[in-house]
Structure formats: C-alpha cells, structure tokens
C-alpha cells in the first residue's frame, strides 16, 4: 500500500473501491427506505380491509331492520336512493376484494424486489475481494524487483525497470492471482423468482 497508493494505477483502483463502497451505502439506504414504505402501505391496506368488513356488517344489520324496503323499492324517492345505495354495497365489496387480491400480488412483488440488497451486497463483496487481491499482488510486484525499480509516486502509470527480473516476477505473480476463486456467489441477472427444489 505504502509504495503503490500514489501511483496512477493505485489511484485508479482506489477510485473504483470508493465507488463500490458508495454503491453499497446507497443500496443499504434504499433498502431501508423501501422496507419502511412497504410496511406502512401494508398496514394501511389492512385498515382498509377491516373498514370494508365493518361496512358489510353494518349493511347486514340495516337490512335486518328494514325488510319492507325490498318490497317497495320505487314508491319512495328517498327509499330509492337507499335501495340504490344498498344494491351498490355487494358490488363495492366485490370490487374491494378484487383490489385486495391485486394489492397482495403487488406486495409479493415488492417483497421479491427488496431482496436486491442481499444479492448486490454479495456481488459487491466479491468484486471488492478481487480488487483487493489485485492491489496486493501489484504491491508485491513492486517490492519484488529488488533492483531499484519502483512504482511511480507522481501519478504516472509506468514502472521504472528495464530489468528482466521485474518482468518475470510480474508474470509469476499475475499467474497466482488468476488462481483467485472465480465462482460468482450470484448468477441472477434479474429479480425473477428463484427455483425451488425439495429433496
């Protein structure tokens, strides 16, 4: 780190790491905000559903006390309005039930979407690990020359060498970093529902 940090490549990698950390923070904040909003929406829906149930119960009680309205639906204008209102209740309740089902589907979609934080966090950790390994290897390349060559400290990108030892050391160390585990923890490219398998 000490030799490498102020080189052009070191600065470049540092910016990548800084960007990745910033993405991780933004994702975390977004996840927290979404969770809060989603929970509030769900609670409001529950209240709405309860209200619909209470309206239905009130209507049943009203019907039990006014059977004559059904016998003379047109004679009294006031009753006509009441009859219209009463006849709209079943339709309204049916519509509310359909809406409730649709909201539940949307809620399920949100639950699935909110899991993006876990997936992206794992991807970010994987990328940061590869960067850290690369940085460590480049640092070792600089230390391994032993012939006065070094990484530049003025933002330059070239290593002052001209010695065969440096080139051979770099080749060997780059071969080592290729051994870094390449299996990705996350292969999903979208937020489609994952597979389920029971053994």
């Amino acid at each position, binding site marked *: 780190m000490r030799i490498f940090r102020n080189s052009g490549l070191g600065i470049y990698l540092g910016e990548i790491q800084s960007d990745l950390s910033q993405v991780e923070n933004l994702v975390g904040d977004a996840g927290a905000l979404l969770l809060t909003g989603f929970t509030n929406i769900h609670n409001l829906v529950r209240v709405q559903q309860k209200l619909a149930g209470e309206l239905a119960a009130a209507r049943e009680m009203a019907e039990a006390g006014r059977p004559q309205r059904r016998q003379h639906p047109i004679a009294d204008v006031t009753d006509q309005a009441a009859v219209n209102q009463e006849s709209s209740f079943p339709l309204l309740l049916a519509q509310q039930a359909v809406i409730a089902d649709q909201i539940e589907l949307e809620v*399920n979609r949100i*639950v*699935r979407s*909110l899991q993006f934080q876990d997936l992206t966090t794992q991807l970010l950790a994987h990328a940061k690990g590869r960067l850290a390994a690369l940085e460590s290897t480049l640092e070792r390349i600089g230390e391994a020359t032993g012939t006065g060559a070094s990484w530049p400290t003025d933002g330059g990108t070239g290593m002052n060498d001209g010695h065969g030892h440096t080139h051979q050391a770099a080749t060997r160390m780059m071969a080592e970093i290729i051994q870094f585990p390449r299996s990705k923890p*996350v292969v999903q490219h979208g937020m489609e529902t994952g597979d389920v398998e029971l053994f």
Partner: protein
Amino acid sequence: MAKTILAVDDSASIRGMVSFTLKSAGYEVVEAVDGVDGLEKAQSHEVNLILADVNMPRMDGMALVKSLRGLERYKTAPILMLTTESSDAAKAQGRAAGATGWLVKPFDPTRLLDVVARVMR
C-alpha cells in the same frame, strides 16, 4: 398454537422480508444473524422449521445444517436453504448435509409459504 420458524441470514433485509412473510401467515419467527447464532437459538427455542442462508460469516449454512442434524431434536426437522447459490453442486452439497429443500433467492412469498406448509405437514 402457532408454529415457530427459525430464519437464519446475515442480511437484515432478507430476515425482514422472511419474517414479514411468515408472520403474515400466522407463524412465529425467531431470527438469527449467522450459523453460530442460529445454532444457539435452535437450542434455546422450540423450533418447527429452520430456514437458512448458505453464505454467512462465522458458520455457514452447510455447517449449520450438519450441526443441527447432530442434535436429537433436529434429526428429522425440516431445514430449508434460502440462498443465492443455484448450482447443482451446491444443491448436492446441501442435500448431503441433510437439508430438506433448496430455495433460490429472490423468493416469492406465496411460493415460500406453500413450501413451508408442505414440508411441515
């Protein structure tokens, strides 16, 4: 009496979503942040099903499953893995460790509840 599910995941957002889904369906939920925490809570609570991530610090999901299967109380308890891993090799490893099923993230709440109900029957 409501059944209790142990949700083990190092991701707070996943634990939140899993808890929300399961509690909405009437289950009690106990949360754990990694395999070590999960093992402790499995022993301190009466748990009917374990839902565990694979990639976790301190103790991963595979090690947790093996440890749970070593306990008399959890020899045959349903243990579902909920993970981003989807390779056949990983699933085979989970099956060999003693897992009951394998769910790939992101999970769908309806599907999760269906699988949970099925394995707890």
